[in-house]
């Protein structure tokens, strides 16, 4: 409450000072605003916003090369895309990633975060486990490693001949896996790729959830414990509802990331994998633009990707709202 009133006051203060200042537009003030706002905004508009807008226009042209000839074709590119089996397959693969990656990553990181924060003794003060700091530091490692390197390392681990995974499997007597191509077999390529992405992000979301859980007042947990709630019950009925907004944010971020997935997928299987089983939209877009020079068509793919991204975010917000989110969150 105090914070809210403070904000209102300071906000009011800003309005008042701004009004007072507006009377005398000095050189100092004008140059300040021009440079401070104008310069960043100009760069941003030229290199971020204008490409977004241009892409929408290009998507309706059959621009196919380096000349400036851009015949306007309306929605023909979109029709073409929806009749293109390989593109539709890439859409399907991207959607599969967007459906499974956030669920798996969020659940796994929630479990790990819960173990670290309330895995400690059930007597006395609520506390985390011993060695929690160690687990936190280790878990965050993959997040700071460049995605390209993660892809290369795992590509080598999955390597059929000299990879670590088949080495371990044959080492424990599963000889059937000798020379098994994890990324070269359509049955496992997608699952193996998804595993790599999950590996890269669980630690980050774990840290995020740990921070959120630590933000819950200890009295809340104590009250639950006095009422006889066990650890599992506490996690389901107290922790998850209270960090619901954080879960939603994590879910949306991870979904947006899954719909991109370009780096991981193109490093793990640069050609789209066996029978295109790991080909995603971003890869298809990239090769359409920079290998085939079909810029109009590539921009149409970009628009479809952006639309799916927005629909995904909207769906997550909607589901969270419908199932009673933000109502029980006392933030």
């Amino acid at each position, binding site marked *: 409450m105090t914070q809210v009133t403070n904000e209102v006051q300071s906000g009011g203060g800003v309005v008042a000072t701004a009004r007072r200042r507006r009377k005398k537009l000095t050189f100092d003030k004008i*140059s300040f605003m021009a440079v401070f706002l104008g310069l960043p905004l100009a760069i941003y508009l030229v290199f971020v916003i204008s490409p*977004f807008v241009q892409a929408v226009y290009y998507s309706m042209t059959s621009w196919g090369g380096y000349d400036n000839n851009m015949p306007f074709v309306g929605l023909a590119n979109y029709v073409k895309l929806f009749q293109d089996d390989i593109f539709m397959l890439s859409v399907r693969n991207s959607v599969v990633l967007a459906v499974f990656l956030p669920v798996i990553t969020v659940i796994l990181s929630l479990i790990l975060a819960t173990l670290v924060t309330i895995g400690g003794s*059930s007597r*006395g003060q609520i506390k985390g486990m011993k060695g929690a700091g160690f687990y936190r530091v280790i878990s*965050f490692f993959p*997040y700071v490693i*460049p995605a390209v*390197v993660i892809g290369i390392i795992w590509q080598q681990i999955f390597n059929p001949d*000299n990879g670590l995974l088949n080495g371990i499997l044959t080492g424990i007597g599963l000889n059937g896996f000798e020379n098994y191509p994890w990324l070269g077999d359509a049955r496992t390529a997608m699952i193996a790729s998804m595993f790599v992405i999950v590996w890269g992000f669980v630690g980050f979301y774990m840290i995020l959830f740990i921070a959120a859980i630590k933000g819950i007042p200890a009295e809340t947990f104590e009250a639950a414990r006095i009422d006889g709630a066990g650890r599992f019950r506490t996690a389901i009925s107290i922790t998850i509802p209270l960090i619901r907004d954080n879960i939603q944010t994590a879910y949306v971020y991870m979904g947006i990331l899954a719909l991109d997935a370009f780096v991981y997928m193109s490093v793990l299987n640069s050609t789209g994998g066996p029978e295109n089983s790991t080909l995603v939209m971003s890869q298809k*877009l990239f090769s359409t633009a920079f290998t085939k020079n079909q810029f109009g068509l590539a921009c149409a793919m970009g628009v479809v990707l952006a639309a799916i991204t927005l629909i995904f975010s909207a769906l997550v917000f909607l589901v969270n709202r419908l199932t009673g989110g933000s109502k029980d969150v006392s933030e």
Partner: protein
Amino acid sequence: MMTLKVTKKPSHDHVERKALDSNGDKTVAGVSHVMLSLWALLVLIPLAWTLMSSFKKTSEIFASPFSLPADWQFQNYVEAWQTAGIGKYFFNTVIVVGFALVIVMVLGAMCAYVLARYVFPGSRAIYILMLAGLTFPVFLAIVPLFFILKNIGLLNTLPGLIIVYVAFALPFTVFFLFSFFKALPSEIAEAAQIDGAGEWRTFFQVMLPMAKPGLASVAIFNFLGLWNQYLIPVAINTNRDNYVLSQGIAAYAGQMGYAVNFGALFAAAIIVVVPVLIMYILFQRQLQGSVSAGTMK
């Protein structure tokens, strides 16, 4: 940062009544430790394996993935650094990320400061425009971006890459620092102005130093993001001499036939990872702190 340390300390070494752990507690703690240890191993083993393989001959890697290197092949690192060009890409990356980071921090702080502390028509619209840049996928922009750079003659150049890095890191920077500047007390800026400081001086000598903790967190995240950036350079920086590390190592891995030196590839991976790992270990506390600050909003 100081206050953070001070407030955190008591919780570490406060005296606590000794409570006996029940059997259930021991089971739960045991199971938790087993699960967390498994996860930690899953993280560490691939990295350890990479490190170990980076010192092996290719034939050794093929023969037995586990054994320690028979004799340590330090020349793998020499080969990666020189033959594979990782040394040059490293230098390029330092230049691009260094310049982009400084520029985006300055511009982002200025923009966030104006948006957070001045009321003027259109400020809300600019803020929403920044949010849009965070939401839409870079892929939508990539083709027009290519031609914008081509038209102004910055395609395949390091300055071109720097300015695009700046532009795409800007919305995150502004968004994060916006809330930071908003929270700073306005009385101090007013006091500075009463004392005769102009807008410029107020910002650089009073407000910017006060925002240091926020700037540090954003700078670390931007450093990681830019150092790891892959899509933008492979699209708009295709001149081999100007490659940055991420695309350099991907190209090196891509041209790997079976006859090439795998040890050097692992060495290259280690060379790329070490700078970010050092940054992480140095700023580990701050990084995790800013993740939590992000969630408090």
